[in-house]
């Protein structure tokens, strides 16, 4: 069946397509020279403090609900699974419904494994959205604001009642072609949500839950 054959072809082809389709943010990209320590000089003290608190929070596996909003969809697409952090820098996002998929985010690559087919590797340099997700998660899990600030302009909004929102806008124009902004939201010292806003108007919300999601 042709469609089946093409479905089988799609997975291994993604790296090819991905490499060919994505803009490369790296032309003239800044080298990763920001020190891998805490907040850079000049950062807002509250921002720095927030990340320090986030970094100290425990990093046990958490269930997630991912909602994708797109102009192509009638209603947001929802998937669920478990998100795991493996120090120092690796995340594993194991989607359980509706399509089983395992995404591993390393320092420089993302590996996708779907069903029984072979894993495909994507270079994070070539995938600004995935790179943003990885950086945001990593920053929150390890409290490393500096790495986040190396690639994004970061701003903190909080309502004073414990709920806060961190907005990160990409510095690199190549990444900015695809990525509008990255949002981290939470309460106190717990990260509750990461949202990737794309230039196309689509957005992907990753809610980290330990109980039923708030609607």
């Amino acid at each position, binding site marked *: 069946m042709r469609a089946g054959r093409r479905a089988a*072809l799609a997975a291994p082809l993604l790296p090819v397509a991905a490499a*060919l389709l994505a803009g*490369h943010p790296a032309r003239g990209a800044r080298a990763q020279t920001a020190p891998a320590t805490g907040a850079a000089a000049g950062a807002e003290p509250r921002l720095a403090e927030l990340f320090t608190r986030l970094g100290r929070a425990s990093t046990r596996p958490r269930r997630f609900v991912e909602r994708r909003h*797109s102009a*192509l969809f009638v209603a947001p697409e929802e998937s669920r699974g478990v998100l795991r952090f493996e120090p120092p820098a690796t995340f594993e996002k194991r989607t359980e419904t*509706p399509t089983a998929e395992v995404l591993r985010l390393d320092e420089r690559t993302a590996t996708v494994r779907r069903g029984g087919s072979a894993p495909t590797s994507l270079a994070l340099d070539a*995938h600004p959205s995935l790179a943003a997700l990885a950086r945001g998660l990593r920053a929150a899990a390890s409290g490393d604001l500096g790495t986040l600030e190396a690639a994004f302009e970061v701003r903190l909004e909080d309502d004073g009642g414990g709920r806060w929102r961190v907005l990160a806008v990409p510095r690199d124009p190549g990444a900015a072609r695809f990525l509008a902004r990255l949002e981290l939201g939470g309460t106190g010292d717990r990260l509750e949500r990461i949202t990737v806003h794309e230039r196309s108007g689509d957005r992907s919300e990753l809610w980290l839950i330990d109980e039923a999601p708030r609607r």
Partner: protein
Amino acid sequence: MTTGALRRTAPRWILWLACVAAALFQVSRTPVLTDITAFLPGPSTPTQRVLAEQLRDGVASRVVLVALELPAASGAATDPATRTAEAGAAEAAAADASLERALAAAATRLAAALRDDPDFAWVGDGSPRSFERDLAALSAARYLLDPGADAAAFTPEGLSAAFERLRVELRGAAGPLVRSIAAEDPTLATLGVLAALGGDATPASRHGAWFTPDGRAALLVAETVAPGFDVDAQQRAIDRLRAHAERALAAWPDAHARPRLHLTGPGVFGAIARDAIERDATRLSALALALIAVLLALALRSVRVLGLAALPVATGALVGFACVGAVWGTLHGVTLGFGATLIGEAVDYAIYAWVQRRDDGSASPGVWRGIALAIATSCAGYAAMLLSGFAGLAQLGVFSIAGIVAAGLCARWLLPDLMPARAAPLPEALGRRLSAWSGGGRASRAAIVIAAAAAAAYLALRPASTWNDDLAAITPLPAAVTERDGRLRAALGLPEVRFVIATRGASREEALALAERIEPGLRALVDAHAIAGYRSPATVLPSVATQRRRQAALPAAPVLRETLARALAGGNLRAEAFEPFVEAVDRARTAPPITAAHYDGTGIGRRIAAQLVDAPDSGAIVAITVAGVADPDRFAAVAAARLAGLAGERAAQVAVLDLKADVEHLVAEYRTRALHVALAGWAAIVALLALRVRERRAVATIATVLACTVALTAAAMTLLYNHLTLFHLLALLLVVGVVSNYAMFCTPLPQAAADRAAILLSVLLCGASTFLAFVVLARSSAPVLAMIGSTVAVGVAVGVLASGVFAATATGRPDPGLAAARQAPTGSPGSRTRSA
């Protein structure tokens, strides 16, 4: 000189001046080429001819592979003593990453500089812009290219399945990527096209540049404007490339660990070969001149003889070059290098004229006839080169024949006027020793014959094949260069150059249609792991018939809209969002079929230009390249078997070319032909000698000397080189031509002792000068010249030795007087010499 003598001799000198002037004029108008393909056998079939032309002039010949390679020692230079293992590893990784980024940035700068340079037509790098251009061209024609685009794909069921797959993709990790093309290409036809391009190994791209798998070198591909055979223009382009690379790397932080620039490609090879050949031409000639001048000065103790020798040598060389220029219009650099040998040969005639003179200054009887015979036999040897079928060797043949004839004529008609009135005294001691030593007894002759027989037996009974027909043996490129070329080609995913599957048609359409027809066979070869992948222009440029067929399967906009609405009803995808898809399909349905022009300005376009070739007789050839051949020696047969059935009645138009095997086959053919020519040449030389010498014993002796020389030389060369090539064979014929001169002078020897001594001395000197000239040639960096040089040098040495041992007086027997003279200083009874 008296007035009468002047009047007699003046016409000759005027004629000489006129010839020299004409030759100078011709040579000044003749350009020098260094195209090494002149020494390769020409293609045999028309398809091969077209492809060979493409290799010479076409896109493939203009490609330069560029690598910026980090020096081996660079990389994370942490001091292990002051860090923990873990921290050190992280530091190392970070340092490596920053090195990679810097390298990629330098490669990008270099690519930008090359794009702006008018000497370069196109630059391929791992930059996103290149990818985007390639992909845009493929995507724009996706419904004409996608083999999966048939009527079934556009039914509600087909669309439903495709959109379900899209939905899964959009939900998945690479969702944002797919999102960017989803509205226009929801069935992911572009991915289908990429699948068909399949085993196309693209190099890994990091930070916007191509890298080798180990990440230590950034790669670029540049195409020059100048064609491959224009070595001057290629050299200019290469120099500019180096300058751009210097500038691109100028800002490298660590001056000690600066990346190195490596270049390979046909143009680069041509430049390297040209440098080597040009260096040779001047170096070899100067060296040969110097050595021979010293030899003559020492042996003959006269500086005047040098001046005399210079006349035939210079005239011969000039006339030789002029004849080549007149016949071919160009002079090959290798011919210039070969000119050094002419010095060794032409000086012989001056030596004979100088040494073999009576005391009163007149020439010995028969010396001119001897020289004429020497010229004739040498020409017979060089004639084999004319008939060899290689353009380059034919040039050497014409050059040498014209040169030695001119030198001989000079020596005969002009030198006597310049000789001093009285013969200069010859080194007597040497002459006496030679006389005494020559004509050795039975023992030494037998020794030589036995050694020759042993050599012949060795050659005949060797377990390995004596002959090496591999062209790699005659390429003047260093092994390191060709090995690096192989590595870069593999890293860039470029196909091997050895195998080409060619389909031929009366038009491009026909050739492409035939290529499509055999495509299932190619896929079968991939599935059977006979090859890793293939690249056919028909994949990105289908025949018009195929394109129209696919267009016919595309639905019109209103139909598609309705089908779409039905397929998506009740699902989560909004049909309105895919209006761009509907419009794209409609456009593709009515657009004109694409041609090669569709890919102008993209990397795919360059590949098509190299692989879709218009043949001169208004046909076209599609050249399909393969990569990763599992069993090279049997591939041609296996592939031909699989593809013949598919081609059906057009099987004759499909050819699987194994360029390496084809060339070796050709070389073997030439070699057989050369063997026949050599045998005929040897027979001609012996016949010439027989005519002159008229004494069967003497002829038999000479033939023996020649046979022994050939056997011993061939055995020596086989021991040295392990294999003999076609050029060794031709050089053996040269050996016979040259050694026959010496043998002929030595047998029969004249009776008078002084004359004998003079002849032996002249033979020794001529042999020594020829030996020196060819030993110098053996140092050439062009293997062709080195092979010829070493063979002739060894042959001359053995030949002079054998001639001396077999030297005999006119009776054809060793001169008993000589032997007796050795035993008793005063004459001895019991032996008499008889004149012939």
